[in-house]
């Protein structure tokens, strides 16, 4: 069930922190992210807007605005610390080791350039190929993302493609350099539900066929549980719980993850019934936090929670870990 949870991880992120200097002061967008990603695994990073999920993953490949960003921590990709690379080395990593899929493919593609040229560009960024080889390779890539050749997408402009096709081409450019790790930043949020399943199935296929690992950044916890083998939940810039899908479904520990699960209406629930909700709103980016960042919204919070910040910990060697002073027992229901 959880093939990727072995210790020979593909990617290990330790204590990743990111802050931006803005005119209004320092914004600590990411305040400690720990992540272990197995080979050929899909790992979902779940969080609400502003939780730092996207920023932390972009920091791994150095795609944050330069000059105004400070990044610290370690991120070992097959033994290489991504965060200690210089700009030239990062260019070598991007596309070749780590591919990136963006939320809105329309904005992530150059609007004035034909789709084909953008794909070719991705292929030849990692070594010049002859004309014939180039054609074979692009065809192969489009096959991999299941774009029928009858559609002639290569000659089209991004705006001429449908949303689903656009995202498939985007994925093709992401894997063009042979990346074994894909970071997918809300890849289906801009798409219809009917298209969403196809895109996520494509990720699963790539995962199985080529052994690609996928980090799926999403705000939708049901989607994460439907597709990913492992899930990390982020809140206010930190990973607050991480574990396998089963861990989160059957024995969720952190009240926030619990709250996320409860917020989604379920078929098994009576219609028009009250949803269990978390009161209040997440903290703002410049707010100073003391103790557990979730304490002011948590029904179980005690004094301790407001004073000291919990660290990510678990039982034994299990990869199910949580940052909480008052972890829930199995199937506990709030009063």
């Amino acid at each position, binding site marked *: 069930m959880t093939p990727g949870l072995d210790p020979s991880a593909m990617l290990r992120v330790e204590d990743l922190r990111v802050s931006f200097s803005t005119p209004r002061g320092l914004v600590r967008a990411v305040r400690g992210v720990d992540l272990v990603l197995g080979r050929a695994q899909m790992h979902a990073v779940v969080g*609400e*807007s502003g939780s730092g999920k996207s920023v932390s993953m972009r920091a791994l490949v150095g795609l944050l605005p330069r000059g105004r960003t400070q990044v610290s921590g370690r991120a070992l990709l097959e033994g290489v610390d991504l965060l200690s690379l210089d700009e030239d080395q990062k260019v070598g990593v991007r596309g070749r080791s780590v591919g990136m899929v963006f939320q809105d493919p329309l904005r992530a593609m150059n609007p004035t350039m034909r789709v084909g040229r953008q794909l070719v560009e991705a292929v030849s960024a990692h070594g010049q190929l002859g004309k014939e080889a180039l054609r074979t390779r692009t065809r192969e890539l489009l096959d991999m993302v299941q774009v029928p050749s009858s559609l002639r997408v290569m000659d089209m402009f991004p705006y001429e493609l*449908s*949303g*689903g*096709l656009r995202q498939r081409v985007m994925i093709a450019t992401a894997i063009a350099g042979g990346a074994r790790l894909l970071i997918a930043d809300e890849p289906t949020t801009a798409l*219809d*539900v*009917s*298209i*969403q*399943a*196809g895109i996520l*199935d494509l990720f699963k296929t790539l995962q199985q066929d080529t052994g690609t690992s996928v980090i799926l950044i999403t*705000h*939708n*916890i*049901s*989607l994460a*549980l*439907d597709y990913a083998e492992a899930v990390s939940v982020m809140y206010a810039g930190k990973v607050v719980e991480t574990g396998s899908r089963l861990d989160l479904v059957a024995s969720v520990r952190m009240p926030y993850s619990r*709250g*996320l699960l*409860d*917020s*989604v*209406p*379920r*078929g098994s*629930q009576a*219609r*028009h*019934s*009250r*949803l*269990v*909700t*978390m*009161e209040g*709103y*997440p903290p703002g980016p410049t707010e100073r936090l003391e103790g557990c960042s979730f304490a002011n919204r948590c029904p179980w919070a005690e004094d301790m929670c407001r004073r000291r910040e919990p660290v990510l910990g678990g039982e034994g060697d299990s990869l199910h870990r949580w940052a909480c002073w008052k972890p829930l027992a199995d199937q506990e229901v709030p009063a």
Partner: protein
Amino acid sequence: MSGSLLEVRDLVQVHRLRGARGGSQTLRAVDGVSFEIGPGESVGLVGESGCGKSSLARALVQLPRPTEGEVRFRDQDLCRLRGGALLRARLGMQMVFQDPHSSVNPRMSVANIVAEPLRLRGGTGRRQVRARVRELLDMVRLPASRYEARRAGELSGGECQRVAVARALAGSPELLICDEAVSALDVSVQAQLLNLFEELRSELGLAYLFISHDLAVVRHMSDRVLFMYLGRICEEIDAGDLDRAPRHPYTAALMSLVPGTQRDRSVMALTGEPPSAASIPAGCRFHTRCWCARDQCATQEPALVATEQGGRVACLFPLAPQPEPVGDPLLSYRPPGP
């Protein structure tokens, strides 16, 4: 039929598009839609983007006016009313939109936003308006003392949406049209809003037209659900039958995509994406993507007919109303492709 609050007959909305390169084309965004909403009833409206659900919502409130058809609200046909009569008749029908920050004028104070409909209607004294504003803010669970004076631009998404609801309630409407009203919110805030809508429903007896692409939300909120495809309703179904007995292949396919459902998605897969409303396929509009289409579907357009369960379906070969994995899909399964 009397007794219904809103009665829509053969509504058509044609948009004229001017193409990027000069030419113009017409687009039948809403193409003959009929349905009813009873007092206090909540009806869901589901469909993919571009199916015309938002155009339908706007056509209901006559912004812009529909091309053809009737919209009878409290037994008055809004399409025939003009000027002041339309403005008055329409007050009973209010909308809540997707983008919370766009739903309220960022430069106005919360109190002024909520009071605007009262002032526009006139006849209410200054003190009464103030009292009513407090009452309305109380209804959407925003403490008036803390929020009245704040500008909408300073509020969070969830708060904006509550203000938008309070404002919509100002004229004591009977029908609230929620166009993706919770889609832009984070899940935790979304749940709070859904609870608020439920509370208002039971407290005020509001009827809802709940438009969303999120089936889980619509299933939770609605008594009846309309499925829309390329400008037409393809199925109307009791929300309780959604999981057990969808009759239209499109409904079944969409339902199989709700996270947490254990249906075989590979069988009911929707191939490709909806065609543009500017080039609607002949025959059944859905046949190009249907997982159980037959030859006849390409030529004959099905009518929307009543089902035994009290719903309506537009399909030549509707699925049998059976519990569990809908029908025997393998019998009619065709491999995907054009």
